[in-house]
Structure formats: structure tokens, C-alpha cells
């Protein structure tokens, strides 16, 4: 898939995220729009994962630590053929397996996440197991910037460097907002690259809403042999829908009919 095609995919995914959130009248809109380009590149360019090989020990692993942005993951997994896209019309409905966070009930999902600060530790265990097995399995996770305040992440940062897990890559969806306010006001993260480097990680910055830059960055993995890789992906919460971009209330805001139409036109335009 070339860059142009990936860009078209991102547009289509954005519209689908909105469609299913609008239909369900629930979902994490802003964060799903901010991570979708990362998931697009991961699933269409990077990960060795498909419905066919999902049960194979050789496939790669993606665990979404910021589980609340599950709508983005649903849309991509449906596109990759893990389940019929129409299933998503049941999102968040009574007895639907398509709930508001990832669960293993859905093919393509590795673990049940949703409590923040869990994914990276699990990835560490999986990456270590892959090393022990001398397999080529690579392990990826996406973290939220607000989520970075969870202490368990920092336990895992220490562990990954200690065990030289260069088959592990953590991507930060650095959209600079969380629920209450900007991270910088809630609990500042900076200087983040220096912190992670000091923790023994190889760190790179990227425009996390630019698929070409993402492709190039993932191509360079591992950034340094013997070190886990950390991608600080600078993103925009609500990306692609101008009235949602950088506006706190779209964390889990649901558009009205009128706003929904406006959003679709914006993405196309």
C-alpha cells in the first residue's frame, strides 16, 4: 500500500469511527481520531497479523494500552477482515461483544484493556517470551499521554530496558490533552524524550498524524540494537474534524446529526 492509499484509508477510517460512535451514541471520539493514523500504518504496513495467522505463535502482537480508543481499533480490524464491519452497528448495545474497550471476545484483540497503565507490562512479558523463544515476534503498544502518569508504566520502562527488549516498541499518542485539561496542567510529562532516554529507551519524535512520517519511523525499528524503542507521536486530539480538534469535550463527545454531517464533509474536504 503506497502513501496515497494509506492516506485514503485514514480518511475512510475516520468516517467509520464517527459513523459507529454516532450510531452507538457513545465512544471516545477525540482519542480515536488522534490514534487512527498510527493504527492504519501499524496494521497496513508494519504488523505481521491477519485473521489467517492470528492463532500462530509467529504473528506480531499489538496491545492497545489506551483501551478507551477502541473504536479506532474496531474499524481497522474490521477492514482487515477480522469480523464483518456491520457488527459494529451493535457497538455498546445490550449483550453486544463490541463494548467500549478491547476484549479477547473479538477476534484480533490480544488482551482486555481499559484500565490505564496495563498494556506495557503485558507487552514486556510477551516480548521477553519472544526473546526466550528466539522468535521474530515484535510487540507494539499505544499509550496515552495522560496514561503516562500511571506508575506501572515506569516499572515497565525499567524492565524493558533491563531486559534489552529491542523487539518492543511503545508509541505515545501525544495529543497533549486528557480528560480534565492539557497534560501540561494536569501532570506535566516534559522533558519526555530525556526521561525515556535516561530510562534506557531509544526515542524518536514523529508527526503521528502523517502516515508517511510514520511509515519511515517504523521502518527504522529497532532504533538501537539492545534497546526498546519509543515513538513520541505528536498528534491532534479530534484530528480531521476541525471543530473537534484540540477541544476537550470531544474526549468522549458524541456528535449530533448535524455535527455528524459536518464532520464527514470536513474529512472529505
Amino acid at each position, binding site marked *: 500500500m503506497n502513501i496515497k492509499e494509506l492516506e485514503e484509508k485514514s480518511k475512510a477510517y475516520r468516517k467509520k469511527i464517527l459513523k459507529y460512535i454516532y450510531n452507538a451514541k457513545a465512544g471516545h471520539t477525540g482519542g480515536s481520531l488522534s490514534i487512527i493514523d498510527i493504527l492504519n500504518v501499524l496494521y497496513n504496513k508494519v504488523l505481521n497479523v491477519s485473521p489467517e495467522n492470528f492463532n500462530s*505463535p509467529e504473528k506480531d502482537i499489538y496491545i492497545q494500552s489506551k483501551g478507551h480508543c477502541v473504536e479506532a481499533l474496531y474499524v481497522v480490524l474490521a477492514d482487515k477482515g477480522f469480523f464483518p464491519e456491520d457488527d459494529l452497528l451493535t457497538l455498546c448495545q445490550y449483550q453486544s461483544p463490541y463494548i467500549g474497550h478491547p476484549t*479477547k471476545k473479538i477476534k484480533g484483540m*490480544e*488482551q*482486555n*484493556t*481499559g*484500565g490505564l*497503565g*496495563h498494556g*506495557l*507490562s*503485558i*507487552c*514486556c*512479558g*510477551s*516480548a*521477553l*517470551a*519472544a526473546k*526466550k*523463544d528466539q522468535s521474530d515476534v515484535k510487540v507494539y503498544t499505544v499509550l496515552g499521554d495522560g496514561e503516562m502518569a500511571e*506508575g*506501572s508504566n515506569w*516499572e*515497565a520502562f*525499567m*524492565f524493558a530496558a*533491563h531486559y534489552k527488549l529491542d523487539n518492543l516498541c511503545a508509541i505515545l499518542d501525544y495529543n497533549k490533552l486528557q480528560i480534565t485539561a492539557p497534560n501540561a496542567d494536569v501532570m506535566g510529562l516534559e522533558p519526555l524524550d530525556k526521561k525515556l532516554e535516561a530510562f534506557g529507551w531509544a526515542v524518536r519524535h514523529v508527526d503521528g498524524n502523517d502516515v508517511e512520517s510514520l511509515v519511515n519511523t517504523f521502518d527504522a525499528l529497532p532504533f538501537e540494537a539492545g534497546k526498546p524503542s519509543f515513538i513520541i507521536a505528536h498528534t491532534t486530539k479530534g484530528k480531521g474534524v476541525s471543530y473537534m480538534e484540540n477541544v476537550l469535550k470531544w474526549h468522549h463527545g458524541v456528535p449530533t446529526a448535524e455535527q455528524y454531517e459536518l464532520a464527514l464533509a470536513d474529512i472529505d474536504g
Partner: protein
Amino acid sequence: MGQEITNIPKGVGLANLEVFASTLESLAQADKTVFAVTSDSRGSGKLVAFGQKLPEQIVEVGIAEQNLVGVATGLASMRKKVFAVSPACFLTARALEQIKNDVCYSDNPVKLIGISAGVSYGALGSTHHSLHDYAVLRAINNITIIAPADNFETAEAIRQAAAMDSPVYLRFGKKNMPEKIEEVEHATSFEVGKGRVVKEGSDLTFIATGEAVWPCLKAAQKLAEEHQISATVVSMHTIKPLDQRLILQLASQNTPIITVEEHSVYGGLGEAVGSVLLQNGCHNKFKIVGLPDEHTVSGSQGEIFEHYGISEKGLTQSALNILG
């Protein structure tokens, strides 16, 4: 000074902890997919020898219990048979959300080993006691909870847990315990989810778990010798799923039931047994012996047991009281 809870002659039994460690080591020798994960706890978990003999099968996470359970989850998801070993107090409080979400909810078959459980750490105090673990874990779906009473049950529990494809929590202490607590004619066997009747009697029943079983047997012996009272003693090693059938069978004798555990009287074995009794219309006289809802008295495990009546003397008295 309180008395020690046991006076087992040296060499008669080991600490369940040591039996755990040697059993795990033999499992790991035979199966390269068996892993121990420790949080600066390999010394207290008696796993130093394991680490020397099988360095590729032990993973140290440092003093980071949340990461301990997360890493164990990741390893288990990659088809390893993982034993996460940490003091019960830290494992089931500090890492409770990881147990709930990563192990139980995500259905990863991690074996959680709570060492030096209950009040084993004695005078180190309540930071080091785990009197809440049955209560919190009973309320979490998809986990088996086991507290072996003796060396025999410990070895069997570890072997059976290793073969189970689901989450298990096992806890035990570090005091020497008998090789096998048993005062019945036939040899008893161990099966997860089935209580073990270690002594048969007709006047009342002790249903106990973990290291509280041994003082119950002592009390039962004393009751027989000094008061002509014959007590049944059950090792209810599996707290969840609970052996309802055995409880109801014991209740049908219409004699008093006393539950005994090294845990808060809230939310543990006693309340679980009480719930089975009441919901099945059983109105046996009933008493829960455990740690009351107060700041725990200071002292050794033996002294704390004595203080709260989890002892030969205290349980003999409880039996006499309930029989009126």
C-alpha cells in the same frame, strides 16, 4: 508469651513454602515452559536454588508488583506456564487491578503464589499481613483460590495448578507444617475444589483452611481426650470454588459448625460457608473464627493465633462454648 501453634518435631514436616519451591523446581526441570517470576522475592520464596539451576526459567522484575503480574500475563499469553511469586500482602493489594484485569478478566492462566500469607510475617505488622486476600479475590470472577494445609496438599496443589488452564491463587505461610494432616483410616487424596476430611467425628465440625487446619486437629484431639467430644476436621483447601456438596453433607449431621481461617472474619471462608448454609436452609449452630475487624495485635504468628483463638486452646474453648 503466647505458645507456638505447632510442636512438630524437627524433620517431621517442612514449611509449605519449601515444598512449593521444590515442587516448582521439579516441574520446571521437566518442562522448559515453566517460569517463576519474582519481585525481589526469590529468597523469601525459597527460589534461590531454582534461580541457580534454571536461570533461563526465572524472571526478576524488581520490587514492582504491578509489573510482576503484567509481565507474568505477557509470558502466559505466549504459552508459558507462569508462577508469579511475591508476598501475599503485596501481590493481592498492590497488584490487585492487574490480577483482576490482566489475569482474570483477560483469562491468562497465571498462577499467583502468595508467600508468607496471613500473619506469617508476625511482628512485622499489618503492612506485611494479608487478611483481605480471600475476600477481594472471591469477588473477582475466574480465579481459583487455594490455601493448602500441609506439605502433601501444597505439592499436590502446585502440580494440579500447573496443569490448569485458568488463573489460580495459592497462598501459604513459612512455618513448618506436618507432612500430611490425616487421622482417618483410609488415605485421603487431594483434588482442587474438593474439601478433604482429615478427621471424622460426630459432635461438631471444624471447617478450616491453610495453616489453621493444624490447630483444629490439635483441638479435636484434646476434645476427644479430655471431654469425650468427637469432632470432624475438614481441610477446605479450595476456598473458590467452594465444595458446597461437602458442606451440605456435613451440615446434615445437624451438629455445630466452626470455620477457622487465617484471614479477616469478613469475606473469607467463614462467610462463604455461612452463605452456603443459609441459602440451603441449614440452621446449624455456626461460628466464624478468624481475625476480627480491628488493628491486629502485635506478635509472632503463633502469638497472634493464640490471641484470637486460632489455637488448640482457643478452638477447644470455642467448641465447648458452641456445644453449650
